[in-house]
């Protein structure tokens, strides 16, 4: 796998991820990807309910959330997580054809989305963007 310039948090700690997908294979492949970005998998969840509790437990920097899952769909999970933790950065992961769901998830507070099959380059850029997002005021003052 291609190596990317490692991303880290402002406190020099590795970026921590929560990966939510009902497919083990998809989780593993996403985990490999974020590791290649210098990240760390803080937790995994196979459904929306677990995702909520895992989020509260691990407090990750980024959540990669599949949109269609059993028990609780990704949209609802996003909504619940963002309600409790407005700072949560959730990136939706979805196949084409769930445009309306993605739209709903974005409106419910997801920060970004990435299309399946996930391309590492695209994901890397998105994560950088989403993370940078939080550091906005600092970057802005620096820029001035």
């Amino acid at each position, binding site marked *: 796998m291609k190596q990317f310039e490692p991303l880290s948090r402002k406190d020099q700690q590795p970026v921590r991820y929560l990966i939510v997908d009902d497919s083990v294979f998809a989780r593993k492949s996403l985990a490999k990807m974020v590791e290649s970005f210098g990240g760390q998998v803080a937790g995994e969840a196979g459904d929306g309910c677990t995702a909520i509790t895992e989020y509260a437990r691990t407090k990750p920097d980024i959540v990669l959330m599949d949109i269609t899952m059993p028990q609780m769909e990704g949209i609802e999970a996003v909504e619940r997580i963002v309600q409790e933790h407005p700072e949560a950065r959730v990136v939706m992961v979805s196949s084409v054809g769930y*445009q309306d769901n993605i*739209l709903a998830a974005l409106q419910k507070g997801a920060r970004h*989305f990435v*299309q399946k099959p996930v391309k590492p380059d695209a994901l890397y850029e*998105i994560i950088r963007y989403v993370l940078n997002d939080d550091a906005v005021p600092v970057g802005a003052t620096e*820029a001035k």
Partner: protein
Amino acid sequence: MTFPSDEQAAELRELFFESAEEILQGMNEAGLALEERPGDIEQLRQVRRAVHTLKGDSAACGYRQLSELAHDLEDVLTPELAQQSGGLIAEVILTAADTFHEMLAAYRNKLQPPAGAALRDHIQRLLNGPTDREADVLADATFEWTEYERLMIVESIRRGETVFNIALQLDPETLLPAAAFELARKALEKAGRILALRPEAGASAENVQLIQAALATNQSTDWIRKQCLVPSVVKKISVDRTPLLETPARDLLDILVESEAQAVSAGVKTGPIDSSSNAEEEGHEAGSTAGLAHAAAENTLRVDAGRIDAVMNLVGELIIGKSMLQRAINEFERRHAKDPVRMKLADALGFQSRVLGELQKSVMKIRMVPVEQLFRRFPRIVRDVARLRSKDIGLEVAGQSTDLDKGILDALADPMAHLVRNAADHGIEESAERQAAGKPARGTIRLNAYHDGDQVVIEVTDDGRGLNRDKIVRRAVEQGIITSEKVPQLNESEALQLIFAPGLSTADEVTEISGRGVGLDVVKSSLETLKGSIELESTPGKGTTFRLMVPLTLASIQALLFRVNGRLYAVPIASVGEITRITEGDIHRVEDHEVFQLRQQVLTLVRLDRLEADGSAEKSKRIFVIVISLGGRRFGLAVDSLMGEEELVIKALEDQLVTSPLVSGASILGDGTVVLILNVPAVVSHLSRIPALGAIA
């Protein structure tokens, strides 16, 4: 459009399918031409016209999906887009031809047509513009805000905020434009206060490429850029201060007046354009539904092949009738040699047979189509294979105007495609290998067609690596097609012939190493069904030629009639090399075969009645031998007596009537006698399957 009856509708559909296939062929050709010369606007116009016709015709037949897709395609086939897209337009046209073809096949079989996602993607990409067009999308930004929005902007500026006109180009690759729009909007929201937005939030964002916004913010241009350049969503961005900023002290009234004037001019501008484009659209629809009617009005007739066949059959019957008449007159002449009426009868017969000959030719001509129709398919095949294998291959075509029976032509399509694909895939080497061998980097496949007697010869030649004789032979031995003892007896041509043997063909190793083989036995047998044959020449390192020979028509043949054991047979005169007489004493046995010497050559002798061939006949008995030569092979056919030459109208035999593949058909003579027509290629291949292959020289 209403259909008076189902039958008419069905007929119209049939007509549509036919014309559509032609359109697709045209698209393929134009696509290839555009690939060579992307700037060829005339080609593009042709494609556009064709697609337009297809759109109208398919709509008229109720094939909505096809019609809509064609409509979308038509929209992107503009010279401007073509120039901006570079080579992409050719790719789109070729993809479209494939997609439409699949859709047509589905409609024909009354199935759900494929959605053509690949084509839609292509069209979308073309619309969005992959490279050069990007700048244009941003340049398209007009920032025409409404009066209210202008007021807001002025108000913000007055409060000391900086207002930017921002244009975002969405990534055309995104398959979720609505979600992309939402993300871009959120990014803008975060960057500042959105005073105006196009398209407006909540509007359908299905086909958005360009987002325009007026944003009030205190952030720097760079920061806005960074914030709004959302990865995988926004491809390009332009951030400019609103022009109003330059004159912040301007009176509000001025601005109001100006904006009103702009709104008015915009209204004047958009109003007529909209209505005129509608009118044009309606004109298009009206024109296209008339497309089919127009096609019928041209000076060509589309006739169902079955109707021509019916005429052909009747002509066949007439020919039999003529031969009946001939016999009757012959008999009359014998009985009344002095009767002056016989001259009149002979004249009448002569006249009748001349007209009949003309009639037959005319009907045959109706069925004849130029080989070009067949050859037209191959540039695409060669191009596809060349692309897939990263080879450089040119296709040269000659003799396109050679006429051939439509039925034969159609039946040749698959075998020919097979040979061409093989030549491109296996025959032609890669450029590096070619150059190392001192050949031009670009490989050439040549198609040629010409008449040879009453046969049509079609050649497929490549200048590739040629066949590897040793590998073929080794493989044939391995597969048990020949025994190893026979190998030394094989001459060059016989060794190469092994490539047509069933079983050998599927061997991967041969395919890879020698370069050929998949299903060549199928090619051969399909030619035999056509009463044709196939020859092959190959020089290692120089290339390979396949020569396909097919009769001009399947309806009748000029044949040599002979008797064996009291039964009447015929062989096509084209396959007869010569006729000779030998005595039983001239016949020798080599292994299990009877052979005889003709001048310097030793030929195998074939008897149709093998029961008689057990040497019981006296040595001095003279027998006729018809020397059959076909595809470089010659053998003798022992016959009892020759009956002469006659034009035979071939009556197809139903499968259950004929158990032998050696008989290809039958005919009825004037006196009602039935003649069996020997399938000469099948006889030859039957011979080559018998072990004593080496005896055939």
